[in-house]
């Protein structure tokens, strides 16, 4: 939803959805990374609406992602917390919000981020997924101890 400078509603920027998931309060400019983290590409089935840099009273600006006919699981949405810890998830059924939840930073993430260390065993043809512990200082590679402390989105698989 957008607002004029006086705060008046101009109407919906993207349509309401009948069934699916609305991810609200994404940090401004991070919506495309959220979509990438969720593994949604142009070739997947879901109808997807994205609004970026929408004015927000609390956040200054925020992004919104609406996903039709797909209800995201807790594990999926928690991954979003890595780049947008204030995001909120609304599960919509028949135009109504049936569930509303925040995101929690997971303690371990698998198969989501590539280890930046070219010598790491996880960057080979071994039958494993990358595995990172989420620590205050950043993401810690379970295999080679490398730490990703910044620019996380450039390592998303």
């Amino acid at each position, binding site marked *: 939803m957008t607002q004029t400078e006086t705060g008046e509603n101009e109407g919906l920027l993207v349509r309401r959805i009948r069934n699916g998931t609305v991810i609200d309060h994404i940090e401004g400019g991070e919506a495309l990374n959220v979509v990438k983290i969720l593994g949604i590409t142009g070739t997947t089935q879901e109808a997807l609406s994205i609004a970026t840099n929408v004015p927000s009273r609390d956040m200054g600006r925020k992004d919104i992602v609406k996903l039709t006919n797909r209800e995201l699981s807790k594990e999926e949405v928690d991954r979003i917390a890595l780049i947008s810890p204030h995001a909120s998830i609304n599960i919509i059924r028949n135009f109504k919000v049936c569930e509303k939840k925040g995101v929690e930073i997971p303690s371990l993430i698998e198969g989501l981020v590539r280890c930046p260390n070219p010598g790491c065993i996880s960057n080979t043809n*071994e039958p494993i997924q990358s595995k990172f512990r989420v620590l205050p200082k950043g993401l810690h*590679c*379970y*295999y*080679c*101890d490398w730490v990703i402390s910044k620019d996380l989105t450039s390592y998303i698989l």
Partner: protein
Amino acid sequence: MATRHIISIKDFDRSEIDRLLDHAQQIDSKKYDRNALNGKILAVLFFEPSTRTRMSFESAVARLDGTSVSVGSVDACSMAKGETLADTIRVVSGYADAIVIRHPREGAARLAAEFATVPVINAGDGAGQHPSQTLLDLYTIRQSMPIDNIDVALVGDLRYGRTAHSLASALSLYNARLHTLSPTGLELPDTLATELADKGMKIVNHETIEEMIGLVDVLYVTRLQRERFPDSASYFNVASSYRITPELLTEAKENLIVLHPLPRVDEIDPRVDESPHARYFEQSKNGVPVRMAMLMDVMQ
């Protein structure tokens, strides 16, 4: 009971390290069961060259009446045919009671432990961890002095030298102070320096070996690899300024010990070998009792 692996010194707390070192000391005093590993087989999987680590593991298992099996060279094994390490480990788990692995990739031993049904010991994974070397380094220090509150100098390639990384991590458990001397570009990685500082370790970076030599109890010298330098001249320039000589050691504390994981090239003048400070050959020999203790720990 879960299978016990030895992958990284960071998985150990101080009491576990002390217990292993005490056990190695008992073995060194010949107080051990010579048939402890009778009928047991150790698989030695070395995907990188090694002399000391490999031979001392083989010697350790033989002294405990066990046997070892190995693939000859990497070229001769099925990894050369494109088999994954995961598959190799699953197969070898069926042939042996424990696996010792050295591999050029960081994290390879951690992966091996995921797929093995027998204990895995990391004998060096790329620039990563080398826990058996660290344990024998600590053991050698402890033969000369209590490890607590000592000043330890790390000299040489501290960026890629896995033995220096592992030792620094372990020393942080003993309130040691770290002194470093390394060429530009080969300093201790920032992530490790931060990790050590977070654990309360004091780290002092030095410009010359002369300013450092009188301050430390242990001088841990590592090899400077020629290929890390842009040309031979800059290599020789740095190598000669870091060289440990009898003349330099006249400025050292009386109880200073000089360690080196070996092989050495030019880092230590051979005349130092006769000095009471030199402990690197003793250190190398200590690899056997320390690895015997490790094998007994995981295989019994």
